[in-house]
């Protein structure tokens, strides 16, 4: 079934996710406050682009966040992602919300508050440690 997914941040991660989900048949809206970042999206991306700051309620409203099945907060700033994710959950009642958080100390507390958080720093540390162990 096709889902309606909002992605905040069209950097390397955001654009990659947008393309994958769009290819899989989901309808996708990407938000970025820097319009030039939409150039990362390939021509077969069939979703929408919104030029704006996702920390503004008005921009999320414009993205029809109240109807979204999921929101991914994937900007390069932890605090932006944490705020956008919480607003999506509390104000717009988006059922699935995931935030990227680089700082592991921040990640732990927001996980405890019930937010779904992906910490790239921890994930890559784990991969490196696993690689070291394979060598032994």
């Amino acid at each position, binding site marked *: 079934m096709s889902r309606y997914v909002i992605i905040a941040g069209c950097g390397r991660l955001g654009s990659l996710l947008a393309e994958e989900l769009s290819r899989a048949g989901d309808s996708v809206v990407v938000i970025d406050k820097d319009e030039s970042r939409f150039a990362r999206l390939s021509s077969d991306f069939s979703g929408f682009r919104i030029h704006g700051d996702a*920390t503004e*309620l008005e921009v999320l409203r414009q993205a029809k966040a109240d109807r979204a099945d999921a929101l991914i907060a994937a900007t390069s700033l932890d*605090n932006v992602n*944490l*705020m956008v994710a919480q607003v999506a959950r509390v*104000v717009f009642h988006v059922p699935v919300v995931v935030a990227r958080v680089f*700082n592991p100390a*921040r990640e732990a507390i927001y996980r405890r*508050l019930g937010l779904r958080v992906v910490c790239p720093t921890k994930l890559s540390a784990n991969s490196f440690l696993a690689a070291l162990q394979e060598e032994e």
Partner: protein
Amino acid sequence: MHAIILGQGKSVYHLARRFISKGYHTTIISRDAAAARNFSRKLKATVVHGDGTDPGVLEEAGARRASILVSLMMEDQDNLVACQLAKEMFGVPRTVALVLDPENETVFRQLGVTVAISVAHMLSQIIEEQVSYEDVINLTSLAQGKVALTEVILTETAPAVDRELRELGLPRNALVATVLRNDEVIIPHGETRLRLYDRLLILTQPGNHGQVLRALLGEGE
């Protein structure tokens, strides 16, 4: 008593001075190195140069002992995260955040910030209330803006002059609390007749403020 203030600039400086003069042990966290140096030269405060939205920096600043944290950074998301970390990780009982987008005032409160203040919202409210009436002085707002205490002066054009309070059709959840007439202080009741140049202290709510002013003073300019 321990207070933590986050940010840079004059408002941080002056707020810190207030806290210090009230006997708070005050710590400032500033991301800007030059601002941090400046604060530590001029204030009897502990100054930390760092990111106040980093749990390690908050801990170093003594967040565990703080009774209040005020976050005055220039990005809403930073003020939100600083307040949430202070509350959830370190148990700071009162957190205050500056918000730039007025819509975030309510959102921040929903997300656990004790007080969220929007300068744009406050200014626009003040301007709206001031432009229409010259004889109105907004004294203070109570209960996070839910009740306003206002002083109004009855001049020649005021329809309330020479009428009893009960004739004015004031809404139930507003109150003319005091009438100041020359040196006399009157606690009014329904039969109190208002006179020219009476000064009234009124309690109103945002929903009926305009209605009360119109009943007492007539239409504004």
